[in-house]
């Protein structure tokens, strides 16, 4: 029995401490080093932040270059599919354009009316936009995020909104010198204060880790309150980070529990990083 225990101890000791000819460090040293790195990355000292930021800079750029061949073939496939469906897409777009032209007329009127009403209560919304290219969109089961090619040198700050066209896709969570990371709406950790229209229900939209979101923090009976037809979710502006009225997604009549985001997060190439200043202007 004692011999068996000795064998176990010898095997464990040998596994953790013995170095092979080509190994420069023992396993135990490296395990302690990785624990040290995990603890260190938890502190917010300036020196650690600079080192972390430098590591991020180098790795993001390297990952972007290494992914170039893969992205080239991915784009080639997408372009081919677009080309094949060109005629069908043209007809569909033509019909949509006609409808949108009609819609535009009533929207213009509402826009002017909205501006007038805001000026009556002495409120204005200023925005600052930065265009950015998506460097890496490696999604993982753990974190749905994208890496952008604009960082602190371009005045990007944590919390800024990421917009694809007119749709909200996420917010900045990490800023390095030349690049930044944005958390997508689909991530489990994403929570966006929103308003469900046309019923004017305040809610929080949370990511699920999949390609859709869910409604949180609202009364259970909200589904009964929703009118017939599709529901559109917009930002409510309650957090103070985003302006009210940025479209997020649509809740279909058949699937009341799901929010389908307007933007396709797998197809993001260029986005806008936007900061809003909401308040009265003197």
């Amino acid at each position: 029995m004692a011999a068996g225990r000795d064998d176990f101890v010898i095997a464990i000791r040998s596994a953790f401490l013995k170095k092979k000819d080509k190994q420069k460090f023992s396993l135990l040293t490296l395990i302690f080093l990785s624990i040290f790195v995990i603890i260190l990355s938890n502190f917010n000292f300036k020196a650690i932040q600079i080192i972390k930021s430098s590591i991020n800079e180098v790795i993001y750029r390297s990952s972007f270059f290494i992914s170039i061949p893969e992205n080239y073939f991915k784009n080639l496939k997408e372009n081919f599919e677009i080309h094949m469906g060109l005629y069908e897409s043209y007809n569909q777009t033509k019909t949509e354009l006609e409808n949108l032209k009609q819609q535009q007329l009533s929207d213009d009127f509402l826009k002017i009316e909205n501006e007038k009403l805001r000026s009556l209560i002495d409120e204005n919304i200023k925005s600052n936009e930065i265009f950015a290219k998506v460097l890496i969109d490696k999604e993982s089961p753990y974190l749905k995020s994208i890496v952008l090619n604009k960082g602190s040198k371009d005045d990007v700050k944590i919390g800024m909104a990421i917009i694809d066209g007119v749709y909200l896709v996420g917010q900045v969570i990490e800023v390095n010198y030349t690049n930044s990371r944005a958390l997508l709406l689909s991530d489990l950790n994403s929570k966006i204060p929103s308003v469900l229209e046309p019923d004017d229900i305040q809610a929080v939209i949370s990511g699920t880790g999949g390609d859709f979101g869910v409604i949180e923090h609202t009364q259970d009976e909200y589904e009964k309150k929703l009118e017939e037809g599709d529901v559109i979710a917009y930002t409510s502006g309650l957090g103070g980070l985003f302006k009210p009225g940025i479209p997020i997604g649509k809740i279909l009549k058949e699937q009341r529990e799901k929010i389908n985001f307007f933007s396709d997060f797998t197809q993001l190439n260029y986005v806008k990083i936007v900061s809003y200043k909401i308040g009265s202007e003197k």
Partner: protein
Amino acid sequence: MSSLNKSPFLKIFLSYLPLLILFFSVFNEFDFNYLKLDYFSFNFVHLLIFFWTLRNPDYLGYLAIFFAGIINDVVIGIPIGISSFCYLLLCSVTAYIRNITLSPNFIKDWISLLFTILLINSIQVIILDLIFLIKVNYMDYLINSGFTFLFYPIFFIIFNFLNERITKQPND
């Protein structure tokens, strides 16, 4: 083919291949860990590290595995050091198995992979969810562990073939 095996360039290339595959996997955007398919994903890097550190650790050093973990953390955006720690735990299990095993047995390796993967994924979930308060989907981890276990035989055949090519001497 036999002439190719004698080529010193090919020999060097093959000897660095496990390392190249490891770094390519962690750097590249394509990830078996997230295939955009419902209820299907597996961790290729875990399989790679498990096989090579168990069968031929000379071609996949611990320091390289440590750096691959750091890169993986930065690319996928989780706190730095977590993947390194998990990869090295995987290495410690394989080192232990190597020490207590006289003749390698595929079935024993396969079963020990299941326990190891469940252990390191549990540790990763505990670190992310309880320490760093990053919400994770437990079901995704469970599915990932299951498929990683199931896919081992396929990658075992591929890696074993590569291992034989690497270790084969020109006069063999």
